[in-house]
């Protein structure tokens, strides 16, 4: 992660985590990014949690959490973003999803002399690395360490609470038609495990596999989790899907709706998401309440 | 003259968007049991006249009567049992056998989904035999030569058992041997009672085999008459816009030779 900070400091191009080869012995200047455009909603949330929300000069249209984030100017989409809208914010750092869609963006930003930080954003380990990387980028490693510790503690508390329970079999209904779920590549798979469940398609080595209806029925999950936006209605009620009536979760009406905004974000609230999932999967458990997030400060 | 097969009165037709009509105010009678040859320069309206007579386009003004009835009153299948057209059409894009192709001539007689009856198949075989294609019946149409395709087209028309056949440029792309065969075959059909209207550029063969000749020029027709009257150097020169020499070769017919525009006064070699 030194790479990111250095690259920021010398105002040079793209830098992915893990490419720790940026120039040693460069002139030491102030490395802290002061004008950040965050094209990852979860990174927006992390920066606010670090107390560095005031460094944000741009967010994606989806990056509306915490509520203060709404006040940050919206630059549009996070994948294949509008370079004009991003540059118009005169950023000194752009936070990007790492992936083929954004490779060209990072290169273009480098050409324009704007540093970027490309973050992989799939697993719980990615989250913790990203917290550290963002903390370093804005010059608040202490706050980042505290946030990282808090996330680890939250997840640990949930894991502790579900230790030894009978693991319920979970089908995570990303999309109904055609049926899409999550596999081992997704942090949601880890959250299900932490919450005392077992993803019926956890053996599939891909983040969002397109599976067969037959396989879902044969998988016979105990619980079906549906991420639903707070403002949405269920457009494909499970009970009405042909052939699903023999699934245990449907027969016993164990269908859990969880706020997609909470469950879909790999950010500081991931412990809260795990706890909510644990409560849904194991209503019989007495779960701890998580300590309220402490206010971190990021001076500068 | 008895009741004509076709009686055209005041026929006018312009293609949509065209500046001048392709056929204008045309009066024409085609006699029964005769072989009429329709000649004229390119763009004179010959193919348009064929379309008007076959009912595939409707005149803007005037009317065509076919066998004494307005053409517009004929149902398409009824018309196809009486009138066959051998048109200049591109070969079909989809491969099929010669027999299947000729069998299409039975379309006006059989229901659209039924198989051909044995009697229909016999008529198809006779049509193939009549044009000398029996040996090639199972070949693909696309494998035939130009002359053979022309024969297959004629066979398809014969399978319609028509009283009248219209042929649009039956000798186009044919060598002199095949062209002669085409005219002889049509003349033979006329001898057996059929009426034929043949649009052609081959004035020489037309003059030999046609009973009537019609010269079409700029959408108007001269009166149908015998070759000797129609093929006057003055009329041909006006129609074709080039000097011609007309030679009467007796039984071989009238031979029309274009003379070069610059030939006037040039000594013969």
């Amino acid at each position, binding site marked *: 992660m030194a790479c990111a900070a250095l690259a920021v400091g010398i105002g040079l191009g793209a830098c992915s985590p893990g490419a720790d080869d940026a120039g040693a012995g460069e002139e030491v200047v102030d490395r802290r990014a002061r004008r950040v455009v965050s094209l990852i909603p979860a990174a927006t949330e992390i920066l606010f949690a670090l107390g560095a929300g005031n460094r944000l000069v741009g967010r994606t249209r989806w990056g509306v959490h915490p509520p203060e984030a709404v006040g940050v100017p919206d630059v549009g989409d996070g994948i294949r973003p509008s370079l004009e809208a991003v540059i118009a914010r005169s950023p000194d750092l752009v936070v990007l999803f790492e992936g083929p869609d954004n490779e060209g963006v990072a290169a273009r930003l480098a050409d324009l002399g704007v540093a970027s930080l490309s973050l992989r954003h799939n697993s719980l380990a990615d989250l913790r690395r990203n917290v550290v990387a963002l903390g370093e980028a804005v010059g608040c490693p202490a706050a980042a360490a505290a946030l990282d510790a808090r996330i680890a503690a939250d997840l640990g508390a949930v894991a502790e609470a579900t230790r030894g329970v009978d693991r319920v079999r979970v089908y995570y209904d990303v999309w109904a038609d055609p049926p899409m779920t999550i596999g081992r590549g997704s942090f949601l798979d880890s959250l299900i495990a932490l919450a005392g469940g077992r993803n019926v398609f956890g053996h599939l080595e891909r983040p969002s*596999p397109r599976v067969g209806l*037959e396989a879902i029925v044969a998988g016979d999950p105990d619980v079906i989790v549906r991420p639903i936006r707070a403002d949405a209605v269920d457009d494909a009620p499970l009970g009405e899907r042909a052939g699903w009536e023999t699934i245990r979760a449907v027969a016993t009406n164990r269908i859990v709706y969880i706020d997609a905004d909470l469950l879909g974000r790999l950010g500081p609230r991931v412990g809260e998401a795990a706890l909510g999932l644990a409560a849904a999967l194991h209503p019989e458990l007495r779960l701890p309440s998580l300590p309220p997030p402490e206010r971190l400060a990021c001076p500068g | 003259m008895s009741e004509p097969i076709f009686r055209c009165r005041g026929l006018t037709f312009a293609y949509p968007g065209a500046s001048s009509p392709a056929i204008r105010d045309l009066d024409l009678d085609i006699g029964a049991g005769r072989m009429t040859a329709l000649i004229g320069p390119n763009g004179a309206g010959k193919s348009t006249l064929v379309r008007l007579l076959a009912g595939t386009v409707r005149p803007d003004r005037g009317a065509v009567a076919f066998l004494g009835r307005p053409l517009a009153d004929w149902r398409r299948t009824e*018309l196809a049992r009486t009138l066959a057209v051998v*048109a200049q059409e591109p070969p079909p894009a989809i491969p099929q056998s010669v027999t*299947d192709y000729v069998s*299409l001539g039975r379309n006006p007689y059989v229901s659209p989904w039924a198989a051909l009856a044995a009697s229909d198949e016999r008529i198809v075989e006779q049509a193939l035999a009549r044009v000398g294609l029996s040996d090639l019946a199972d070949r693909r149409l696309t494998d035939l030569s130009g002359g053979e395709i022309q024969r297959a087209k004629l066979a398809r028309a014969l399978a319609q058992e028509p009283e009248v056949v219209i042929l649009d440029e039956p000798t186009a792309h044919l060598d002199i041997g095949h062209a002669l065969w085409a005219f002889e075959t049509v003349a033979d059909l006329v001898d057996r009672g059929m009426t034929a209207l043949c649009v052609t550029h081959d004035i020489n063969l037309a003059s030999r085999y046609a009973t009537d000749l019609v010269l079409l020029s700029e959408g108007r027709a001269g009166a149908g008459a015998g070759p000797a009257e129609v093929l006057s150097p003055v009329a041909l020169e006006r129609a074709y816009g080039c000097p011609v020499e007309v030679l009467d070769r007796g039984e071989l017919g009238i031979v029309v030779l274009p003379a070069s525009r610059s030939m006037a006064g040039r000594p013969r070699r």
Partner: protein
Amino acid sequence: MPGVRGRAAGLAILLTALATALVVGLTLGNVRIPPGQVWSALTGGETEPAIASIVRAIRLPRVTAGALTGAALAVSGTLFQALLRNPLAEPYLLGVSSGAAFGAVASLTLGAGALSGPAGTTVFALAGGLLAIVIVFRVAWTVGRVDPRVLILAGVVVSAFFGAGVMLLLALSRGDAFRSAVLWTMGSLERATWPGVAALAGCLAVAAGVSFAMARHLNALSLGEEAAAHLGTDVELVKRVAYFVASLAAAATVSLAGVIGFIGLVVPHAVRMIWGADHRILIPFAMLAGAAALVLADAVAQAAARPLVLPVGVVTAVLGVPLFLVLLRRSHV
């Protein structure tokens, strides 16, 4: 060219192929179930409830939808190729698929509640497909006749327009509709429900019946419109009716299963190469071949990477194109 005997043999071959495909499709699904249990689930014998559910409520409607969709695409493609005398003609040529995709994506992104549910999406897709066709025909219909050249051009342009409309809706939509919409345009038989299957069966029956009843007129049209008129065909009437039923069949398949390429283009060609261009034979044979091909392709899509499902349109192309190229090479068309 095959005679009566060749055609009888062809009918036997295609019926066997379809029967085999149906057995394979019902046996090989996304989940391994022993054939004996599949049989008893189908015949109402003793089985576990989950197996009965999978076979009767998921597999059987999917396989049935596959057979009907394959047949409908084949008859639609046959009609378009006959009407346009263009070997590249296929069911989606006139913008049916883009229009249907637009309707479906509109319901997914703009609709709420029942409108964006599976039934709403199907209805929107059908409406979108038919809308595209109506526009194309209004443009191509001049002075009492349909001009095939204008029709193709209008189809391509309208198709591009609705394709752009889909992209526009997706660009303005929230993230998760995007994935569904993209997958939707890839085609899948899994959304088949019995009411949807029944609706498709109705459209197919109309298209098949009407086109078979016009078989000799379609044969004549292969020579060109003027030649067909000389042979007694009421060309404009036949064209209007045939375009309508071909488009109806295509729209019905798109609204049920999305866009499944290759079947509607290639099956009619393959059948024509083997058994000739007589539509009295071609239409029923192409329907049987299309049904068998799609059911087999779907069986592969379901079973090749269990429990993942491959896009069935990809399987039809990957399996079918090499076979077709061999046929093309041998027939020298």
